[in-house]
């Protein structure tokens, strides 16, 4: 068997995700108008970063892997960009 170190960082990351989830839910109840969505998205982005860096172990990976991971994000951007282009300019 491979000798695994105890996955303390995984537990920590999981706890951080749960804490951020609690934060999202509680902040959603504040009457902030459009800021509610902005706050929820920002917290979501932080969560995604935690998943990418710690669960997907991207912080230990070489440049090629990071390029491929970044490509996923970039292509998601294409989907949102060209999709929004229709949505925002529809008559």
């Amino acid at each position, binding site marked *: 068997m491979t000798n695994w170190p105890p996955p303390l960082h995984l537990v920590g990351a999981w706890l951080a995700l749960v804490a951020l989830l609690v934060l999202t839910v509680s902040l959603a109840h504040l009457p902030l108008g459009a800021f509610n969505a902005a706050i929820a998205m920002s917290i979501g982005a932080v969560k995604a970063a935690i998943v990418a860096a710690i669960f997907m172990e991207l912080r230990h990976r070489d440049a090629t892997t990071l390029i491929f991971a970044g490509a*996923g994000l970039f*292509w998601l951007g294409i*989907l949102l960009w060209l*999709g929004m282009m*229709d949505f925002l300019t529809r008559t």
Partner: protein
Amino acid sequence: MTDANYLNAEYSLRSWFFTTDHKRIAILYFASLILFFFIGGAAATAIRIELATPQADLVSSDMYNRLFTMHGIIMVWFFLIPSIPNTLGNFIVPLMIGARDLAFPRLNLLSWYLFMLGGTVTLFTVLAGGIDTGWTFYTPFSTLYSNSYVAVAVTGVFISGFSSILTGLNFIVTIHRLRAPGLTWYRLPLFIWSLYATSIILVLATPVLAMTLVLIAVERLLGVGIFDPAIGGDPLLFQHLFWFYSHPAVYIMILPGMGVINELISCFSRKAVFGYKFVAWASLAIAAVGFLVWGHHMFVSGQSLLASLVFSFMSFVVAVPSAIKVFNWTATLHKGSIHFDAPMLYALAFIGLFTIGGLTGLFLACLAYDVHATDTYFVVAHFHYIMVGGMVTAYFGGLHYWWPKMTGRLYSEYWARTAAVLIFFGFNLTFFPQFVLGAEGMPRRYHVYPPEFQVWNVLSSGGATILAVAYLLPLFYLGYSLFFGARAPANPWNAPGLEWQTPSPPPEHNFDQQPIVTRPPYQYSPDFKAEPQNA
């Protein structure tokens, strides 16, 4: 007696169904794809019989909807997308780059099991009564109105998507990590470049399909408003998400075919592919720009005019790298020593049919003409020229080219050429009349039509009969060769690629010694002899 090879190493069922050998997994895929091809083909046959007369005589409207839906779903996801990557690619990629296997052999086997599971679920839909949404699953029909087995069919396609992702991932890692010593990127055969580009699309686009299909199920089963405006959804969102995957999926289907054509044109012209770097980068350009054009499926959907203009422009741009390839293949033929062996006949047919398919695609990229042609047989003819005239022809070409390597047997050249010629004529007779029908305004997806369209429909159905016979022929002469064909030498075509420098069929671990690559691909001496990449 033949030497030990991957086929005679072990005979038990277990040694096949639990194999991690890329060559055996390729054969598993090959056998499964034959099955799906003939199921999808049977649906097409029923459609063409029905359309031979203007009135309904074979099936009801409802049954007709289920037939063309099943034809589309099976042919797209269970034949065209896996066809070249999972059979020829699986078999040839490690051999071509001098590797013992793909980077993740077990993932490769898992990919086949997921594919079969997805296929079984989809076939269950057929037995249960079918699905009537068309292969595109457009909302709101698929989420609100259809009374057929939408959720089940969508689940089948969803599962098969993971098989695609695993295959793409496997190829990307393999091509990065397992190239033989000396095999630099610019020494890779162009088949590898095109599969690399295909894999990138598989990995980047398929997840979007998966999530779109889940969203259909969520709206249909749980009533959450995603696409239905009455409960807060956006009716065009589905089309955006679906075509974000499905236009690039067209390139998943055609890029591997283009890859095969490079190998065939070069080998049977006894010349290096003209403009190697342009062809290599054209594959990646197609993969990248192919993601920016999906809105050309939505010109009449109510999408904004700005979006339509941008997608129309990008659709013209994406034609450029494909055109580069066609010009370069033609230039490769120039002053070559051309041999008309069966694989070459398929390759030449591909160039002609793909060019017609590609150019009619430009008609459809024009905003004004597309309004006239949307949902007519013009569109049907256009994409069948790409996917059947292009991809299926390339698949058959590649299959004949690598058949001696895969099976260790030689097939009947006479019958192979006959089939190639019949496919070319049968195909054109089937689909060229559909351009005329579409231009005259016959809509797709109806089983009754005004009598003035009958002449062209009869021609098309007649062509389909020839095409059906031509597609059945290889089953016989290739099947015959498996048992009675002459033993194939290691390099029957006298080609320079690494896959030809090991016995046919290859030993279990592909090469007795690690090949060292010393020169670019496609090198021939002035007297047209192959100069092997590892000599």
